[in-house]
């Protein structure tokens, strides 16, 4: 075969048609321009979308949870409420099908639930999120995590604890499962207590580790800590004393308030029956009511000093004006007003000491309805007190134009109007101070409180002496406290049942202050429907008052102002006793 060199190859000599090379060229050009268009499209027109998609794959926004503030008592060392992390156990029913019975029963044992209960939650397979149990402690949750039950997951949440439990239940209130306050201080100061959650945008690597921050972190703002005016010690003492009285008298309910006279701080606020705020199942029914603040009642005799002080203040009577209360029955405006006993001639001090309704009626005859209404309004009756607390009741004080003549008399001794225990205690601060009512607070007070002058200091001094006598040997003597001079007024009010005054249901109250020489605390006690061992305020509420005053003054370190027979071996000046 003849060898032909490559370039001599006859094949090469064949003339190709020109269009074929053009075609190739055009196709190549088209290809390039298609690429160019695509590049333009990706780089120019759909950048935003693509960047978003990319970020979605490696960037994450983490929510930085804020912790709810703690609540302290006035000393700052007793925690009344605090949050700790907890976990919620949740499941995807479809995945949870694969969990073995042994796993479920172990899980049930750990969570304190029956297997049946867990399974009933997993019945609906269309759902893809079912809570199994919330507020599980972290240790327990970790144990459950180690079991690796298929379909079960966990989620972080916070759990609120109330170490003092039922003792401070009504003051502190509680939060719901979403950590929002729904009662008490938790509700009143919800915005201060709850913080603002922060956020950070981060890049995560393949293993889910945070590699870097993309934007500046928005730091979480933790909720403020609150310092209440409540003194945990006084609160406990009041609680114990009240509880004892409720048991002794088989009473339906009771409430007690201790107010610092100098600062207007509420040192203790107790309601019974109470509940355990840590136990979600216990938080229902009438036990939740903060009776001292939200319930109003007809005060009865504890109202008398205010009318008497008014009459003295505008000089309609003097301390020596005598009233003939007769034999204990008095016809007035078509009704009969009666006293418990026959008292004869009494001056105003005697009227308060003997708690004479007839005497009060006679005093009220020298007053006009308008004067009484004005003074009662000034004292805060009929309007909600300025205490930053949810549900403060304003009570009922009808406008004076609509009072019937008999009502002027009944108002004078505490019927025909309704007040809350807080209002009553607040009004008594006027007698404990120099005739001025101090503003109340539930938070520890920084700086000086404001006060409103209601009575003149002279009248206050006179009334204080009368109230001391009313709590003395001739009055409610059970209110007396060893070592301290106390002043106060007992009251027994009939309850209204079906629009009529009941003859078997009462409310015994006692409001007073101590020590008389330089008052430090106002204590108000009310006991609702006592059923055994008496029902008079001087019998059921006065001993509670005495207990509370004794322990409060001891805790506050107030020196006794009454003579005491000391049992201590060394006299106050260091000398040996005679």
């Amino acid at each position: 075969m003849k060898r032909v060199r490559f370039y001599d190859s006859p094949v090469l000599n064949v003339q190709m048609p020109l269009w074929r090379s053009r075609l190739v060229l055009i196709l190549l050009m088209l290809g390039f321009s298609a690429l160019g268009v695509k590049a333009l499209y990706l780089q120019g027109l759909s950048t935003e979308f693509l960047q978003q998609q990319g970020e979605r794959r490696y960037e994450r926004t983490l929510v930085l949870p804020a912790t709810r503030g703690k609540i302290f008592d006035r000393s700052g060392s007793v925690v009344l409420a605090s949050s700790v992390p907890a976990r919620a156990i949740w499941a995807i029913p479809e995945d949870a099908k694969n969990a073995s019975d042994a796993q479920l029963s172990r899980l049930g044992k750990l969570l304190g639930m029956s297997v049946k209960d867990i399974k009933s939650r997993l019945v609906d397979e269309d759902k893809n999120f079912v809570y199994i149990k919330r507020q599980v402690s972290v240790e327990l949750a970790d144990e459950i995590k180690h079991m690796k039950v298929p379909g079960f997951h966990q989620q972080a949440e916070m759990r609120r604890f109330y170490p003092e439990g039922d003792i401070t239940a009504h003051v502190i209130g509680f939060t719901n499962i979403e950590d929002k306050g729904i009662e008490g201080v938790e509700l009143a100061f919800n915005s201060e207590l709850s913080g603002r959650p922060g956020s950070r945008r981060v890049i995560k690597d393949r293993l889910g580790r945070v590699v870097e921050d993309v934007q500046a972190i928005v730091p979480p703002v933790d909720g403020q800590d609150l310092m209440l005016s409540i003194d945990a010690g006084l609160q406990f003492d009041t609680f114990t004393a009240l509880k004892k009285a409720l048991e002794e008298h088989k009473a339906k309910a009771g409430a007690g308030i201790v107010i610092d006279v100098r600062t207007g701080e509420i040192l203790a606020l107790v309601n019974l029956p109470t509940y355990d705020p840590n136990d979600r199942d216990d938080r229902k029914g009438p036990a939740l009511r903060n009776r001292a603040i939200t319930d109003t009642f007809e005060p009865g005799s504890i109202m008398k000093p205010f009318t008497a002080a008014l009459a003295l203040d505008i000089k309609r009577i003097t301390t020596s004006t005598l009233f003939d209360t007769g034999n204990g029955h008095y016809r007035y405006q078509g009704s009969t007003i009666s006293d418990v006993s026959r008292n004869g001639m009494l001056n105003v001090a005697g009227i308060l000491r003997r708690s004479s309704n007839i005497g009060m009626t006679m005093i009220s005859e020298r007053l006009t309805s308008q004067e009484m209404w004005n003074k009662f309004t000034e004292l805060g009756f009929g309007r909600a007190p300025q205490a930053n607390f949810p549900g403060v009741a304003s009570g009922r004080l009808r406008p004076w134009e609509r009072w019937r003549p008999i009502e002027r008399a009944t108002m004078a001794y505490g019927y025909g109007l309704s007040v809350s225990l807080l209002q009553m205690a607040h009004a008594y601060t006027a007698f404990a101070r120099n005739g001025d009512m101090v503003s109340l607070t539930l938070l520890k007070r920084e700086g000086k409180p404001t006060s409103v002058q209601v009575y003149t200091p002279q009248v206050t001094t006179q009334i204080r002496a009368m109230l001391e006598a009313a709590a003395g040997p001739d009055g409610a003597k059970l209110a007396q406290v060893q070592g301290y001079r106390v002043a106060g007024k007992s009251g027994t009010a009939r309850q209204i049942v079906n629009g009529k005054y009941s003859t078997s249901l009462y409310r015994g109250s006692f409001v007073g202050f101590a020590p008389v020489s330089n008052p430090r605390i106002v204590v108000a006690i009310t006991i609702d429907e006592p059923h055994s061992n008496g029902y008079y305020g001087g019998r059921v509420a006065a001993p509670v008052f005495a207990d509370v005053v004794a322990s409060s003054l001891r805790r506050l370190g107030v020196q006794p102002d009454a003579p005491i027979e000391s049992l201590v071996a060394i006299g106050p000046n260091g000398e040996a006793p005679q």
Partner: protein
Amino acid sequence: MGRLSLLFACLLMISALSLVTARFQSRQLFVQADRLEDKARELDTDWRRLQLERAELARNARIDATARKELEMVSATPDRTLYIKGQAPVAPVPGEGDRP
């Protein structure tokens, strides 16, 4: 001219390498800072828990019951108390050192 470009090339190399190391270091420090923050949060939680535990143990009701029943103590009454006049010493404020 040739020397100058060589110098710049070297400088460029060094800067590129240092950029890489700096970047690496910053990541490491970031992870560390993150871990420490976690730790701080954990300690804060522990502090809260301990504070609660202390509150639980120092509950008035518990102390009162223990004092009365186990230790057989009674409340101090004014007749058993010696009152001393004078300026009260400034007591250390309770609650100080309670902050995390």
